[in-house]
């Protein structure tokens, strides 16, 4: 039996899908024309609701027309690849930063805002990652620290994580790092503004399974600051990160059995 879909049927399906995405209706046979618009409306509601709840601050920042135009264009020109609708906002973010130069001119921090809002979702939803075995007792300086693996660090040009999106202007342009992680047990997403030094420090902790004492040594060379000063200045940050469950504990003999 020939199980191939005929070109005609395929085109009919494609025309209907195209209408839903673009609003342009190309001869679909037997269509009830005064009803077909409900499909378009339903799809747009689903898409718009899901994008608004993913990007509440962006939605608030943009003029209403700008937002609806953007959603409309996204659906028309972008072929959504996510089966899961909660992942679709990532595609919206990618689409916007690659195609919306005018909006980005008007809102120079739009990229950063979309990235921040998406990363919150990504970290909140990410699959569980078991951390390395750790002890809660240990030596801050000489033991290797175990980090909570459920996190992301993003680099921003504008401080959208600490300043209202309407107050940000060109003078805020700089280098900002944000640590976004998921607390174990409560599953809450936390945001931590990181200085360049602390961003560097976390990267070292991740890459090189080394204790802080070695990392301060390397920091001394990189930042040309005395390591005793670095150690002193890092103490509060490291203790905060322990208390706030980004640093979970210590890799030491007691648990390496």
């Amino acid at each position, binding site marked *: *039996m*020939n*199980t*191939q*879909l*005929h070109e*005609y*049927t*395929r085109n*009919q*399906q*494609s025309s*209907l*899908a*195209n209408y*839903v*995405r673009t609003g342009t209706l190309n001869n*679909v*046979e*037997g*269509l*009830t*024309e005064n*009803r*077909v618009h*409900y*499909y378009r409306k*339903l*799809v747009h509601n*689903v*898409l718009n609701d*899901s994008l608004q709840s993913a990007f509440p601050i962006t939605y608030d920042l943009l003029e209403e027309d700008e937002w609806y135009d953007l959603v409309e264009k996204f659906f028309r020109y*972008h*072929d*959504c*690849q*996510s*089966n*899961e*609708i*909660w992942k*679709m906002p990532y595609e919206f973010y990618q689409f916007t930063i690659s195609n919306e130069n005018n909006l980005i001119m008007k809102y120079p921090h739009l990229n950063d805002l979309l990235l921040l809002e998406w990363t919150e979702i990504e970290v*909140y*939803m*990410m*699959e*569980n*990652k078991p951390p390395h075995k750790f002890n809660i007792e240990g030596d801050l300086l000489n033991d290797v620290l175990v980090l909570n693996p*459920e996190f992301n660090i993003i680099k921003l040009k504008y401080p959208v994580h600490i300043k209202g999106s309407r107050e940000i202007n060109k003078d805020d342009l700089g280098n900002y790092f944000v640590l976004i992680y*998921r607390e174990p047990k409560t*599953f809450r997403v936390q945001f931590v503004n990181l200085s360049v030094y602390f961003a560097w420090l976390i990267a070292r902790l991740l890459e090189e399974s080394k204790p802080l004492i070695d990392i301060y040594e390397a920091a001394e060379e990189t930042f040309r600051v005395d390591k005793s000063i670095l150690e002193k200045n890092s103490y509060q940050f490291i203790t905060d990160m322990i208390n706030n469950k980004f640093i979970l504990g210590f890799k030491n003999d007691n648990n390496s059995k």
Partner: protein
Amino acid sequence: MDNGNKHIGIGFRKDFAEEFLEKKILKPVFVEVAPENWMGIGGYWKNIFDKVAEQYPVYMHGLSLSIGSPDPIDWNFLRKVKNFLKTYDIKIYSEHLSYAKCDNAHLYDLLPVPFRWDAVHHVSKRIREVQDFLERKIAIENVSYYTPVAAEMTEAEFINAVVAEADCNLLLDVNNIYVNAFNHKYNAEKFLDQLPLDRVEYIHMAGHEQVEPDLIIDTHGEPIIIPVYELFEYTVNKLPKNVPVLLERDFNIPELAELQHEMSLMENICRRAWNHEYAVA
């Protein structure tokens, strides 16, 4: 009466997840979820899902397989579905007789497949392939549709042909039959009589919204209306075997007691129709 529920499940929603777990107002015999919302996640919702899955049998009702699409089947996605079905020991996996992806783009809605012979063969072949891959039968749901597209047969003929050729089960959505009968002006009971009722594995019930004098939209956002309960009673009396029944409520979620009341009404109907179960017991 609540404790006597033997057939009715609920579509599990994030909107009422906490209350559902804490207060036990709803007493379903199973819950239904969409794999797209619960697969491949961690953190808070995974934790909730695991709690639910510990306490209730889970059925799965997919949104994005797009079995009626001209596009190729997404085997990668289906591989994840297969794992999920295994991990949570899910007994029923159903999907819609419609398409939700076309020209390589997901649409996040269910569009009607043209009721045509080539579409019957195409869809049936795909259902068979999916069933082979999953090593189980799946149930295919009759969907509501607001306009026909290039039809060369009736909806009932289309459903019959697909179920026969694909050798799959049928997920009978009673509300969708009511909605389609109203929108396309046919008799719901006669329509039901034409369906392969011996293939029904599972039933959906839901509310809808009338948006025009001659048009109902299948919103799952309102209580079930009496004529749909009546059609449900008609249906369960015709079925050759007892099947699980789901209450779908996706929007406009009321007090859970209200949902429980709807579930109780349905359970009562099932009991009346299937009371031989109790006579033997």
